[in-house]
């Protein structure tokens, strides 16, 4: 498909910038349009940057004049950064997605929307099947605010794709990412002097390497499929094993004390734990990635264990340098 025009929200995030840089190098991509309130992380050559907030209704006009045929929605906040309230996070995620979709309604050239969503929609449940597939979002009640937000976002996109069947909506459900360049909750967790765990629990967790996080987005832009697709590395890793590989001591904390202890540790400068992340540390979660491999035709390069090992190796290199 020559002469493609791709619009990226959240281009100021690490992954957004990297995606724009990769698309710039693709000969069949005619134009890359980036939207964010933050500047990109690196110099971009031919991306048209727009300083705009997706919560602002003004982006409708912006998107209409850009005439994209593909929109990559990369502005879903997974954990509030420093100085961001959970209220602002909810607004960016839910109101932002709503504004973006409203704008997309009036773009006749649009063919596909790729959303960098979250596997957080499944929650972390002790009784869940060991590998959740894309149909299993309704097995358990939505327990956390973030889970409800993600469910709401998915709902908007479902409604949109029913109303506009010519547009293919691909909802990529990402497992937590790990990688040397990213600043994720897992990276921060494993970089602490000691890693708090739930006493008596050692769940299986599943991660996606930053390389695969980017490549999966590109694969979905090239080969859009309808509906939800799980994105993760193959296999799982036991939480304790991951902490030990990272050379950190696990710090078991009894269940009822976990939230107060980590809140107190936060005041001492350790990282914050969202409710979703706490449930993940207690019960873990893994997804079935057959749809990614077979329908999107993307085979992740790193398994979960390899992703953790790569992150550790790169960190040692960085220290040595």
């Amino acid at each position, binding site marked *: 498909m020559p002469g493609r025009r791709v619009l990226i929200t959240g281009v100021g995030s690490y992954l957004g910038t990297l995606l724009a840089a990769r698309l710039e190098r693709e000969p069949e991509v005619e134009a890359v349009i980036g939207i964010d309130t933050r500047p990109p992380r690196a110099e971009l050559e031919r991306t048209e940057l727009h300083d705009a907030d997706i919560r602002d209704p003004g982006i409708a006009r912006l998107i209409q004049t850009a005439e994209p045929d593909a929109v990559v929605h990369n502005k879903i906040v997974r954990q509030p950064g420093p100085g961001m309230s959970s209220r602002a996070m909810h607004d960016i995620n839910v109101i932002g997605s709503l504004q973006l979709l409203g704008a997309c309604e009036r773009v006749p050239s649009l063919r596909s929307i790729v959303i960098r969503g979250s596997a957080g929609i499944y929650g972390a449940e*002790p*009784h*869940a*099947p*060991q*590998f959740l*597939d894309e149909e*299993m979002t309704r097995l358990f009640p939505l327990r956390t605010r973030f889970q409800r937000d993600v469910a709401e976002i998915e709902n908007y996109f479902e409604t949109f794709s029913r109303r506009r069947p010519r547009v293919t909506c691909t909802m990529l459900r990402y497992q937590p990412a790990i990688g040397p360049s990213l600043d994720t909750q897992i990276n921060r967790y494993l970089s602490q002097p000691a890693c708090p765990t*739930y*006493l*008596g*629990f*050692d769940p*299986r967790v599943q991660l996606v390497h930053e390389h695969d996080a980017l490549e999966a987005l590109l694969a979905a832009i090239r080969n859009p499929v309808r509906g939800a697709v799980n994105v993760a590395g*193959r*296999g*799982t*890793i*036991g939480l*304790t*094993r*991951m*902490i*030990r*590989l*990272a*050379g950190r001591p696990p710090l078991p904390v009894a*269940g009822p004390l976990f939230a107060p202890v980590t809140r107190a540790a936060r005041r001492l400068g350790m990282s914050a734990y969202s409710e979703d992340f706490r449930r993940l540390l207690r*019960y873990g979660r*893994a997804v*079935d990635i057959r749809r990614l491999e077979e329908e999107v035709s993307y085979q992740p390069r790193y398994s979960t264990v390899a992703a953790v090992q790569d992150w550790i190796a790169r960190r040692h290199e960085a220290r040595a340098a």
Partner: protein
Amino acid sequence: MSEPAGVDAALGFMRRLREGLDAGLEFPDAVARGAAALPRDARQTVQRAVRRLEGDYAEDEWGFDEGFAELVEPFFGFLYDRWWRVKVTGARRVPAHGGAMLAANHAGILPWDATMISVALLREHPLPRHPRFMVLNWAFDLPWVSVFMRKVGGVVASPYNALRLLEQEQLVAVFPEGVRGIGKPYTERYRLQRFGRGGFVEIALRAGAPIVPVAVVGSEEIYPKLADVPSLARLIGAPFFPVTPTFPWLGPLGAIPLPSRWRIEFCEPIETAHMGPEAASDRAAVLELTERVRDVVQQALYANLVRRGPAFI
């Protein structure tokens, strides 16, 4: 008079460990150095423990940890040989390759029967492999129990898990009686409950895997349930709260199972591949096959009860 060799070796180990720590070594390195002069068996055990502390062990995608399963094998071996004196017949009937489903009767809130089926296959089968077993969901809420279960091959009792395991050509043990089986009062022991709605047969049909009926005699006497206290069960979120001759009177000691004599029989496998995966949506065929499996297990239970004789001596 010289001290026994074991004490000598242990003292030497402690001395070298302290020297290592004084010399500024990290704890795992100091342990490894201290272990250098131990007898070979002990040295290997210590080195293995150090490697595990550094995260150097393998778990598969289900969380099954073969190294851990080997580590706890002596404990289950003791239960198998001495405590329950298990006798096994028909282990060779279990297919050596490919996916297969073991369907057994079920008793006791802790899945001792599943672990004994595992040991039986590892000991008696010419090509042993670790079976994976479906564990009552409740166990995965519990600290330690949940970790232990997944490390020795237990998975959440869900049809999705069973199907994926069979597609990966694993041996899957299911207990179709489910919670009705483990909650049976003592007077109803060895009377099989309804086998659910035949969900396990549906999965076997979809995967084309043979079903091996398994009869476990002995497991239904280890926790003789005399009464049930539903209000206490609700309080701790358990499916029932059993009252046995030892529990809750002796506290945690009440969890020690009684030493009954066990017999495990693996019956002739029932092939399903020729019926095709479409048969999974044929209600009548599924229920008929379910009843057939239940009947085979029930007959084998009665036959083995007679062969075993008295329960405890």
